[in-house]
Each structure stands twice: as C-alpha cells, then as structure tokens.
C-alpha cells in the first residue's frame, strides 16, 4: 500500500495590505482553496505564471508560512505552525531548494558549513560525525571532497544548485520542495540537475513537489500536474491526463504558448512565412 506523504485540504492564504493613513485596506487572495495529495516516491509538479500563488503554496507546504484557512498534513500528521511550535523532527521531514543558487547561499559561509548547519540546528549528530556526513553528501550530489572548504563564489550555477540540493538532503527529508530549481540554469546543466534529482529520488524514495513554469521540464519529470491560475488550482490530475486532455481554458492557452522545437512545427512556420 502506498503512503501519503503530503496532503492539503482547502488551503487558503490571504495577504492584507493596509491602505495607509487614509486609504482602504485590501485583501489579496494568493492561494484559494487548494487541495492536493502526494504519495511517497512521486513527483507533483505545480505550474503557473508569476504571481499565481505557486511559491506561496510552496512556503505553506514547507511550514515557513501559515495558511489563513485549510489543513496541512505531513505523513498523515496535522501541522499547525500558528498553534504549536514545530518539533525538530517535523522540520527534518520537509526541506526546500530555491530558484536562484546565487542568492540562496551565504557568500561568507564555506560549503562544509553550509552542509553541516542543518545538522547543528535540527539534529543531535555529534561534531565528529557531521563532517563525515557532509563529505558523503558532497560526493553523492556529484561534487568532490576538496570542495568542502571552498566558498560559494568559486562554483558555477549548476554546482551551486547541487550544493543547495545537498544542503536540503542533509537531514534525510521525506519531502523535498523544489521552487524552480532549474530555471536559472543552462540547458546542459539543467539536464544534469534533472538527472541528479531522478537518481536521488530512486535512491532515497524521495517525494518531490516541483514548482516550475517550464512545461517541457514538467512533462519530463512529473507524475501528477497541478496548474494554478490567480491562486486557484484550475487543473489537477496525472501527467498524461493533463497533457493529453486539458480541461481548463487557461491550461490550453499555456500549452499553445509553449514554443515548439519539433521539425514539423518549424516546417509549418517557414511555409506560413514564405506565403
């Protein structure tokens, strides 16, 4: 039987803007009534344009931000960060990788410390063992042990994203939230990072929530796909169902807008142009 790692029921997140001294305040509904379920070892991709609420949803799932309404379950356990403080164990279960590997690493912190910090904060692994674990993780994500004492500026974008992934994996999480992990990377490096994510998923049975705006990447990596539009989940289903038979108007617009790189489409375009 498969186990459900992540479940949300009717998640809502509102942001209140004060209108200043004389103006009327406003409420922005960033996420509206989103329910989803991800099973162990599976990948859910969340697709949408900037401002559609996908990153807000990621923050809620990662327990950084509290939902205005709705329930969040991690491993079947209900989480409410406003009511009680999160246990270290809960913190360990969910980790996040951010979009920009140039911004998400402290420029003054050595890579070794980047990797050992989560252990210091959220576990009681002794100092002697922390170093070994960090070394092992470096090789696992395709870096070398000699990178341990280097600073982030000495690495390329792809290597930095590997470091960010390694940091997220240090606590053996169950669920990894990936917020646009490859959109800042070149095509060839993107392929390497996607392969690494697939390898790690196989090895550790990781569950991914993969946030992206790139449909070709989503189609390659996802088991389930959710399309968000202005805070609402307008489409949610298995990858094949969503891609072969999109129900919502917006999903179809999104597919139509994605550039096609196959020979047939190019030939058609050139014919149109010649005419």
């Amino acid at each position, binding site marked *: 039987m498969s186990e459900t790692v992540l479940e949300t029921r009717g998640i809502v997140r509102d942001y209140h803007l004060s209108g200043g001294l004389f103006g009327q305040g406003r409420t922005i509904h960033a996420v509206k009534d989103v329910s989803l379920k991800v099973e162990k070892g599976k990948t859910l991709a969340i697709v949408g344009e900037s401002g559609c609420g996908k990153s807000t949803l990621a923050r809620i799932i990662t327990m950084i931000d509290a939902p205005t309404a709705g329930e969040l379950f991690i491993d079947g356990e209900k989480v409410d960060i406003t009511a009680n403080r999160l246990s270290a164990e809960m913190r360990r279960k969910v980790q996040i990788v951010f979009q920009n590997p140039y911004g998400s690493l402290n420029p003054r912190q050595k890579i070794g410390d980047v990797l050992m910090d989560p252990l210091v904060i959220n576990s009681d692994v002794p100092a002697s063992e922390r170093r070994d674990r960090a070394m092992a993780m470096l090789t696992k994500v395709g870096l070398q042990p000699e990178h341990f004492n280097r600073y982030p500026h000495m690495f390329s974008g792809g290597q930095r994203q590997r470091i960010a992934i390694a940091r997220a994996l240090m606590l053996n999480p169950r669920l990894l939230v990936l917020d646009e992990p490859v959109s800042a990377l070149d095509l*060839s490096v993107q392929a390497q990072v*996607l392969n690494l994510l697939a390898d790690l998923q196989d090895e550790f049975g990781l569950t991914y929530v993969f946030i992206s705006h790139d449909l070709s990447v989503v189609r390659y990596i996802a088991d389930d796909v959710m399309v968000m539009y202005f805070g609402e989940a307008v489409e949610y289903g298995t990858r094949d169902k969503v891609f072969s038979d999109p129900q919502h108007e917006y999903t179809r617009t999104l597919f139509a807008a994605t550039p096609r790189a196959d020979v047939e489409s*190019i030939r058609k375009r050139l014919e149109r142009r010649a005419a």
Partner: protein
Amino acid sequence: MPLLEIENLVVTFDTAAGSLRAVDGISLSVDAGEVLAIVGESGSGKSVSMLAVMGLLPWTATVKADRMAFEGRDILNLSAAERRRIVGKDIAMIFQEPIASLNPCFTVGFQIEEALKQHMGLDRKARRKRAIELFAAVGIPDPEDRLGHFPHQMSGGQCQRVMIAIAIACNPKLLIADEPTTALDVTIQKQILDLLMKLQAEQGMGMIMITHNMGVVAETADRVIVQYKGRKMEEAGVLALFETPEHPYTQALLSALPENATGDRLPTVSDFAFEDTPYKGGRA
C-alpha cells in the same frame, strides 16, 4: 550586399588574471529581412559579439576584426560621435531585463521621445504623435495615457513592449534582440515573439535573435549559428539544424531538451565529445 557583415571577430578582456578571449574568431552576416538566431550557453560570447557591434563594451575590452561593416560601411574604426549616429537609429537593440533597461527616473514617454529627438529631429508635437503611434503599434492599451507612466507602474511584459517601441522608433534596418523573452512568462513570451516577428515582417528589418532557448529559435529563426566558448560550432538553416544537426555540440543541445527525452535519464552535453570537432562551414 549583406546588412551586417562580420569577419573573424575577436574580443578579449583584460582581467586581473590575464587576458580572456570571450569571442574567438566569429564570422557572420545578416541580410535585410532575415532573422538570424545565435544560440549558446552562458559564457559562449553571444551577447559580447553583439555588444561589440553596438560599441557598448567597457574599456577593458579589445575588439579586433578583419572586417565589420554595416551596409558596406566600416563600423569598426568609427569615432564615438559617428557611431552614435548609427547606433540607436539604424541598428537598435533590445535587452533581456526590460525593467532594468528603462530609466526609473523618467516617464516612458520621455524615454521614447528622447530617441526621436536625438535621431529624427522631430518637433515636440510630432514626437508626441509618433510616440503614441509607436505605443499603439506594439500593443500598449490606452497609449496616450501610458506615455505619462513610470517603468515601475508597468508589468515586465509591458516594459518589454516599451523597449521594443523605443527600438523601432527610428525605423532601424537591423534589430538585435538579446534574450528578449527570458525574464517573461510563457504566455507573455508568445505575445512578445509574435509582436517582434510581425514588426520584422512589416518593416523588412534584419534581425539577430540572441537566445539560449531552442524553442525560441525554432519559432523565430531563418538561419541559426550555434556558439560555444566564443567559437562558432555550426551554422545552418533552421530546418536543417533541427532535422540533421551535424556538429556533436548541436546534437548534444538538442538531445538535452526534456521534450526529446526517450529514456528515463536525459543525455547531458558532457556525454558528447565535441570540443575538438572543428566548424565545417555553413549550410542552407
């Protein structure tokens, strides 16, 4: 006669660690009414070679070429004043970050009229009329009102439309678009690409599209140059390039596209040995 002709362009930068060759012997030519795409990863020198054409490189850069001519006229050894007469008028450029490339302190109307004043010598009334026409042409709703807006009041897609309006303000013969849609959402990307292609066809401009996105290449280009580490790897017609890529690097790039994935792992560029394969010459 081609619109822009470059032969054996070399750009080096003086750095603390010695000189760095960013562009290493690139030759290219663009005809009027043609769309040439230059594809490559970051660091392949695709932007630097175009900045060299525009004369926008910092003083640490040294530009050398056997020939660099626009409409048959040498543009390599121009004085700054002579260059300014061509750049912005006959050759215009659009940059990647629309919000960052507009000046936040002035209204968009001022910025477009500045270009018209500099190059077209129109009076105040005529400038305003032309600016409204241009905004309408690039699909900005309510153009008269929008002229008084500042860049921060507009979205990224709208700012890119303003940039395009400024670029085409003086009816350029060559438009260089440096990753014009990389910072934008896919649906906005589609609108901007459609707009660029429409303007290109209407005005018969030559266009150079710099991008790292193979999808954008497939949707816009007539001819493609693939660049890696400052060198040309392959040059071919767009159909030939996608149908029968000849150079191993091009093959690697195309097979790393997730939509072309066959197995459960993607082939990566490092799986292909390509660095020693020389450039074989262009094809149609």
